[in-house]
């Protein structure tokens, strides 16, 4: 029996709601160290809401989220900030600060949280940007770059502090399929090289099959998770809704 790596993030009977309207009920899952965990489902199923819960941008209606063995939901703001220090996030729209250059975007977290000397920060910024293939673009502003390059710059900012966990919201959103696949490959390579745990929220079937170690399928109608497992297995032997999701996704491309 292979030993299962420890869970880095756990959800315990998590219920998410906007006021009275319940989005997903009774969610239980554990994200293990070193895997690429995909949260998938159709539009409006609560994928992004789940991400917001895991990051503390929204509070659960019931249940709790654990980072390692510590409860994130019960933690104070200060403790949460400490836990989130180990986390990097790549937002759907990259969310780069438009009034700063790429170098400034990547160096801001380093300046705020490390207290490293400026020369050292410059070295790290150069490294992170060259990891995503943007070496030489240090002095560019985000709006001077293409969408794919902005995504990669956002990725460089997300890994600035060497996070243990990397959250990615819709990595291939608004990217053409080849650019999306290249970003997927980059995410996989970075994950393997840095040993990061990656949590991806997406509805892009090609991306799910390409990078996912395990996937969780949220169903908007049932208001719960209806399947969990390796993406290829879900595609071939999952519940009918999940197989339909994969099938339609492929046709849709």
């Amino acid at each position, binding site marked *: 029996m292979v030993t299962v790596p420890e869970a880095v993030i756990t959800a315990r009977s998590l219920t998410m709601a906007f006021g009275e309207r319940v989005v997903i009920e009774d969610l239980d899952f554990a994200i293990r160290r070193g895997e690429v965990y995909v949260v998938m489902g159709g539009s409006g199923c609560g994928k992004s809401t789940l991400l917001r819960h895991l990051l503390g941008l929204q509070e659960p209606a019931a249940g709790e989220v654990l980072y390692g063995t510590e409860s994130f939901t019960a933690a104070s703001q200060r403790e949460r900030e400490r836990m989130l*220090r*180990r986390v990097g996030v790549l937002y759907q729209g990259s969310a780069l600060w*438009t*009034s700063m250059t790429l170098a400034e975007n990547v160096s801001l977290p380093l300046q705020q949280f490390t207290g490293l000397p400026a020369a050292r920060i410059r*070295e790290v910024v150069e*490294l992170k940007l*060259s990891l995503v293939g*943007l070496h*030489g673009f240090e002095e560019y*502003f985000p709006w001077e770059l293409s969408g794919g390059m902005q995504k990669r710059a956002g990725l460089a900012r997300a890994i600035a502090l060497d996070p243990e966990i990397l959250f990615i919201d819709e990595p291939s959103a608004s990217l053409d399929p080849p650019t999306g696949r290249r970003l997927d490959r980059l995410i996989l390579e970075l994950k393997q090289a840095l040993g990061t745990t990656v949590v991806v929220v997406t509805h892009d079937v090609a991306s799910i099959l390409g990078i996912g170690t395990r996937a969780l399928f949220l169903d908007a109608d049932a208001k719960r998770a209806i399947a969990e497992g390796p993406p290829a297995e879900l595609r071939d032997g999952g519940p009918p809704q999940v197989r339909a999701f994969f099938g339609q996704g492929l046709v849709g491309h």
Partner: protein
Amino acid sequence: MSSDGSAAPAPAALALSRASGGTLVVRLAGSWRLAGETPGVDDVERELEAEPAPRVSVDATAVTAWDSALVVFLTRLLAACKARGVGIERGGLPGSLQRLLELVQEPAIPATRPGERPPLLERVGLRAITWRDQAQEVAAFVGSTTLALGRFGTRRARYRGIDLGILLQGAGPTALPIVALVNFLVGIILAFVGITQLRRFGAEHYVADIVGIAVVRDMGALITGVVLAGRSGASYAAQIATMQVTQEVDALRTLGISPIEFLVIPRLIALTLMMPLLTLFADVMGVLGGAAVGTTMMHQAFASYLRQTSTSVVSGDVVGGLVKGATYGALVALAGTLRGMQAERSSERVGEAATKAVVSGIVLIIGACGVFQYVFFLFGW
């Protein structure tokens, strides 16, 4: 990031030795983290300068913990070796580090960016060209706004009626309290200055005339224009600049809707219509401010103060003030919308656009006020 065990981790260490055939062996040990001190590549470079080696071999098997600090060191080392044409052996590195280095080594897209400061003469020239471009931009903006006004007049302009309603509401009624307060205070100030100066000639009983004429002819419109430059002008600029950032302006353009018609015209109409009304209101408040001083300091009856004002201020004064008010309103709206449309797609530019809108709005108002004085003087109005 930092390991927080009870025993402090061994610090990062670097040891150089020679293997057979002169190969330089770089042995790394300890914790290579950003949080701690880590050796630089200078030692290795010095060694290579002193005694050239055909190859460099890196051994990181004794490294206990690492993060970006080690990767930075290794990329520097690779670059140093490459510059000297020395081969490098990475067999002693963990697999994940080797992968990471391969990612870094991928040829970066060559990117050039003018970072150098050009010489003085060139800067002067560039600045002149920028000014010319900006002048053209302003002229084009005013021109297309005029054309759009024509389409508005013939009911062919594309805009939403509800937007105009909301803008009228925002520019007019909601501005009443601040316009009232500021103009009341200006009336008080004018009355004080008038009384203290007129007293020297024993003419202080003319204070109602002075305040009435000053407020109705000029100060009411001027002060209200400045208030609106800070209120509406800044808000127009910030809103349109934000719409540039979020590509909403582009979305209008691609739908075939002219942003001038959709965004500029309603704001221009709203301020130009509202300013005369606000000016009239401001005139009343200014006269009341003057009356507050006149009745308390001069012990003049309130009714007699008002009667004196009404005999000194003729209807031509009022109309002139309203015309000025409408003009200032149009100028503030144009300055605000132009600064918004000029903004580039960055959040910093939003604040800049608002600032510039207020500054150019006030400058335009004061400039127009001067022109009005001269023209009114020429015609003896």
